[in-house]
C-alpha cells in the first residue's frame, strides 16, 4: 500500500518534470510533435516509410511549417502550441515494429 502511494507520488513528480522539460524544449511553439524531432536514423527512416499517407503528409506539413517559422525567427500564436497532454507518439508503434523485426532478423542470422 505504502509502496503503491510512493510509486504514484514518484510517478507524479516524474510527470511534472516531463511536462516542465516539454515546455522548456519549445518545439511545440513551432508546431512540432515529439516524434517529429527524432533524428532520422535508419530505423526512424524505415518507420516513417510505413506511416499511413495522411499521417506522413501531416508530419511533412508540420516540419515544413517549422522550418519556415525558424527561418523567419517566429513562433506560432500561443493558442496553437501543442499541449504536453495532447502530444501523441504517432511514430512509436511503427518504430516498435521495426525494432521487433530487426531483433528477429538478428536472432535468425545468429542461429543460421
Amino acid at each position, binding site marked *: 500500500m505504502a509502496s503503491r502511494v510512493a510509486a504514484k507520488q514518484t510517478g507524479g513528480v516524474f510527470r511534472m518534470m516531463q511536462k516542465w*522539460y516539454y515546455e522548456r524544449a519549445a518545439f511545440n511553439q513551432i508546431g*512540432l510533435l515529439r516524434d517529429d524531432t*527524432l533524428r532520422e536514423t535508419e530505423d526512424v527512416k524505415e518507420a516513417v516509410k510505413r506511416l499511413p499517407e495522411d499521417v506522413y503528409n501531416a508530419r511533412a506539413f508540420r516540419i515544413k511549417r517549422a522550418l519556415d517559422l525558424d527561418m523567419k525567427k517566429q513562433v506560432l500564436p500561443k493558442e496553437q502550441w501543442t499541449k504536453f497532454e495532447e502530444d501523441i507518439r504517432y511514430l512509436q508503434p511503427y518504430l516498435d515494429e521495426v525494432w521487433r523485426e530487426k531483433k528477429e532478423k538478428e536472432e535468425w542470422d545468429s542461429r543460421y
Partner: protein
Amino acid sequence: MSGPLRKHHPLLKVVNHSVIDLPVPSNISVMWNFGSLLGLCLVSQILTGLFLAMHYTADVNLAFSSVAHICRDVNYGWLLRNLHANGASFMFICLYMHIGRGLYYGSYFYVETWNIGVMLLVLTMATAFLGYVLPWGQMSFWGATVITNLFSAIPYFGPDLVQWLWGGFSVDNATLTRFFAFHFFLPFMIAGLSVVHLLFLHQTGANNPTGLAGDVDKVPFHAYFSYKDVVGFVVLLAGLVFIALFSPNLLTDPENYIPANPLVTPVHIQPEWYFLFAYAILRSIPNKLGGVVALAMSIVVLFFMPFVHSSRQTSHNFRPLAQVLFWLMVVNVLLLTWLGGQPVEYPYIFLGQAASVIYFVNILLFIPIVGYVENKLLFS
C-alpha cells in the same frame, strides 16, 4: 540538349551543382556563413602570403630584417604583412565559430564531412604554428623550441625524432628553411582537403538549426545564400581591414619585435591567442608525455563527438539541458584561453588543471549522461 548551359557543360555543371542550383535548407542561419568565410580567409592568406614570400628570406641571419624590409620598403608591404598576420587570427575566429556551430547543431552526424573538418583544423593549426616561426623573433624561436621539444617525450624514438625535425641539434637555420617550405605547401593541402570536405557535404546536403531533415523546404543556393555569403565577406573583410589598419598589434606579442636570441629566454613564453586553450591543457599535467597526450587529445576528442551523442534529437535547439552544458563548455574554453596566457603560479595552476578536467569530463561523460536523461524525460 535543352536547358541552360550551366546544367550541361561538363565543367560548368560542377560549379552549378556546388553554388548555384545546390538545394539548401531555407532556415540556415548566420552560423552557416563561417564555412564560406573560411574559404575567403584561405584565399586571402594564400594571396598575401604569396606576395610576402616574394620578399621574405628564410635564413636565420636575414629573416627578421627581411620582414622589416617588407614593412618599410616594399610597396604596401606593411599592409600585406598586417593582413596576413591578422588574417590568421580571423581564420581561427571563423574556425572556432564553424566548429561551435557543428557541435551545437549536431552536424558531426555527417561523419565523413566532420572527420575531414577535424583534419583541416589540425592542418590549419600546423600551418599557423609554422608561419609564426618565420619572422624569427624571440617568440617565434622560443615557441618553436617549446613545441618541437614536446615530441621528445615520445618513448624510445622521441629524442631522435626531434633532431630529425630540427635538422640539427637545436632550432636553427635548417629548421627555419624547412618550416618555410611546409608553411608554403600546407595551405594547398588545406585547399584540396576543403574541396573533399565540400564534396562529402554535398552528398548529404547541409544541416539546419532545427536538426530536422530539411528536404521538405529547400531553396537554391543562388541567389539566397550566395548574396548572404557576400554580406558575410563584406563584414569579415571590414573587420580584418579595421584591425590591420587601426590596431595591427592588438593580437600580437611585443616579444616578437625582438630578434631571436637562443641565449635569452623570454620570461613568459606563450603562443598566439588561438592556441592558448590547448597550451593551458598541455601545462596542466605535471608529466611531459602526459601533457603532450592531453594536448593531442584536446583536438582528437572531436572525432568522438558522433559517439558520445546519446540524445535521440540531433540539434541542441530543443534540448534545454544540453544547451546549459554547451555554454558551460564555451565558458570553460574561454577560461582555458585566459589561463594559457597566465604565468605558471598559484592560483592559475590549480584553475588550469580544474578547467582541463572539466573540458574532457564535459565531452566524454556529461554529454552522454545529459542525452540519456533528456531521452527519458521526452521519449519515455
